[in-house]
């Protein structure tokens, strides 16, 4: 830690409502624009170089360029090339020079833009998620991108690309420490919360890499003492990841399609549908994408919340602070069920919005895992499940049917509407959350904590009216989880509607704070 980046220490009389004015401004790493724009540079250099050289050596031109290039002498060509390079470098320098960031006690400020200047201020206590991402090229340079999400629907509030990896980690810890409500200079790091007794986690592997006892370090800087130690709760072995990808319906379809096409091409003469190639390439690309992002997946818990890290070529470390998870979904896809594999995804404000193209990947807490892994991850994002025996309860929720586990299911009269799922679809209440269960073949449950209920909607169409049932949907922020209790009996649906509204109100009064360690 360089002295220039030391945390500003507020005076004893300073109110916490004021930003420290003297917080220093920093720049991102100088090679950042190159790391971001290297593809453009390489492409330009390649095309230009090829044209210039081929015109100079004057033989068969593999890729004849515009007339003026092929007729100009080499010297002029080189000069023009150098000019273009200079312009690009100048642009890179400008974007670098005008990108500055500052971290104060309560805000993150980022100034960007050369021609159109932009100054952005984001409240630290509104952080929803912090990511450290390393695309392949950035990894080669030892750089990382720091991304700070708040609860708006757009892209990241702050996107520092790129800083040194160590610096990124340190910034993350600083921001999280302040978001937790700890003021700098920090008190000793909070002890790691003991694993909740309610969740006997079998596979908790201590991580030897993570700092184990932050107490031993002198609290010279807030961030050093707050590099909260982490405890790994779930990992995804590569074999299981590949197996899970092979057992996706789209993969199975692709394999069947290739086999079918192969047979067709060998029996029917002159049948070669090369126009289908892009479709297969697209499917293979999606498969690769899943492999790339699910590889080496590790979920860990720390005082800062849940930490996820994954990636084959591009790696990403994601931190979701406690209390940011709005809804949880556990699914058991049909083809995974014989193997006992599950998937966990969540709604977190700022991540799930459709604007970001990596939203789907970033809201996955566990791409594929056993029931033990699911419990371990749930114990972090749902620390108080609110039932006496969560192991049995969630087993009943995911795989059970009928009223076991306290579930209220659809009345038998809806059988013509949902011949398979009518015994499964329903809901159960715990002290802290509502669990909605759906699906007979592709099974899923959605968990919405009472304190996170944004609203409830009761709806009934003409067909449902004939069967005397209603649908109850729980409003949450945008994301992969869409909690819905399907086809409830009208009377019990009406009752649940108001009761749940009251429960949500009561839960809100008890627990609502953006800070999770310090005073609210």
């Amino acid at each position, binding site marked *: 830690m360089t002295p220039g980046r030391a945390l500003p220490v507020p005076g004893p009389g300073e109110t916490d409502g004021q930003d420290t004015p003297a917080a220093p401004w920093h720049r991102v790493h100088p090679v950042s624009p190159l790391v971001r724009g290297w593809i453009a540079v390489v492409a330009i250099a390649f095309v230009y170089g090829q044209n210039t050289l081929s015109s100079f050596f004057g033989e068969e031109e593999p890729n004849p360029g515009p007339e003026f290039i092929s007729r100009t002498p080499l010297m002029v060509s080189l000069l023009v090339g150098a000019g273009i390079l200079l312009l690009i470098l100048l642009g890179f320098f400008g974007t670098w020079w005008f990108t500055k960031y500052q971290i104060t006690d309560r805000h993150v400020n980022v100034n960007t833009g050369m021609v159109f200047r932009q100054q952005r201020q984001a409240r630290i206590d509104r952080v929803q998620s912090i990511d450290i991402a390393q695309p392949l090229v950035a990894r080669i340079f030892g750089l990382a991108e720091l991304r700070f999400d708040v609860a708006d629907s757009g892209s990241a509030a702050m996107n520092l690309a790129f800083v040194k990896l160590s610096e990124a980690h340190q910034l993350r810890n600083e921001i999280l420490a302040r978001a937790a409500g700890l003021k700098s200079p920090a008190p000793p790091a909070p002890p790691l919360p003991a694993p909740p007794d309610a969740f006997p986690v079998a596979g908790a592997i201590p991580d030897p890499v993570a700092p184990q006892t932050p107490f031993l370090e002198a609290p010279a800087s807030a961030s050093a003492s707050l590099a909260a130690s982490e405890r790994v709760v779930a990992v995804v072995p590569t074999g299981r990841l590949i197996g899970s990808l092979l057992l996706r319906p789209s993969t199975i379809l692709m394999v069947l399609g290739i086999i079918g096409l192969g047979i067709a091409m060998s029996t029917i003469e002159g049948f070669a549908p090369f126009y289908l190639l892009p479709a297969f390439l697209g499917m293979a690309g999606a498969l690769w994408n899943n492999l790339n992002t699910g590889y080496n997946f590790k979920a860990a818990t720390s005082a800062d919340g849940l930490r996820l890290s994954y990636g084959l070529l591009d790696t990403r470390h994601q931190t979701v602070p406690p209390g940011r998870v709005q809804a949880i979904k556990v699914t058991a896809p049909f083809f995974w069920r014989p193997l006992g594999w599950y998937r966990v995804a969540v709604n977190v404000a700022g991540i799930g919005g459709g604007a970001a193209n990596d939203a789907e990947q970033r809201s996955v807490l566990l791409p594929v895992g056993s029931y033990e892994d699911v419990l371990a991850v749930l114990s972090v994002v749902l620390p108080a499940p609110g039932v006496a025996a969560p192991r049995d309860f969630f087993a009943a929720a995911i795989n059970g049917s009928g009223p076991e586990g306290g579930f209220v299911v659809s009345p038998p009269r809806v059988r013509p509407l949902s011949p398979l799922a009518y015994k499964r679809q329903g809901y159960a209440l715990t002290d802290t959350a509502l669990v909605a269960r759906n699906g007979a073949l592709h099974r899923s449950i959605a968990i919405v904590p009472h304190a996170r209920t*944004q609203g409830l909607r009761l709806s009934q169409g003409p067909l449902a009216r004939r069967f005397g049932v209603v649908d109850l949907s729980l409003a949450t*922020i945008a994301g992969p989880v869409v909690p819905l209790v399907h086809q409830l009996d009208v009377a019990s649906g009406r009752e649940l509607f*108001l009761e749940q509204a009251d429960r949500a109100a009561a839960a809100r009064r008890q627990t609502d704070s953006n800070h999770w360690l310090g005073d609210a």
Partner: protein
Amino acid sequence: MRQEPIDPAGIQWTRVSPSYAKVRMVGWAIGALITLLVLSVPLVLVLTGVWEGFPLWLAITAPAVVVAVEVIRLVLIPRQVAAIGYAEREDDLLVRHGLMFQKVLVVPYGRMQFVDVAVGPIDRMLGLCKVKLHTAAADATAEIPGLPVAEGTRLREQLAARGESRLAGL
């Protein structure tokens, strides 16, 4: 206000102004007219002899169906407006609407992010406004159209005050 089977027990709904039906009817008239004009084009072409090949029965059926559907929609408008209701509870706002597809929505005041009051040109003539309560969840946006302006203003102030006192983060 009539209680529908899905309405939660013990809620006293407040109806919106019946003259909101007029606003809806103006919107209906414009939409119906455009649909009718577009679907009448083949009939006009056939009758004027420009497009001989087009079957006459189809050219007549299309506008006839439009007229029938639009008349049914027109007849339903007053009942649909009568089915819109809202109720303020201690901690949340309830809104219901729909005849065929009925919906009841409850939105806690503490989850409110902001309140909109919108007034369209027809609304203004009739002294009406529309109050919209936005939350972080897109599908929990409570919309109450056809409120008298005074009631809309009162509701907005009320919602803002209650949202403030029951403020909860996300």
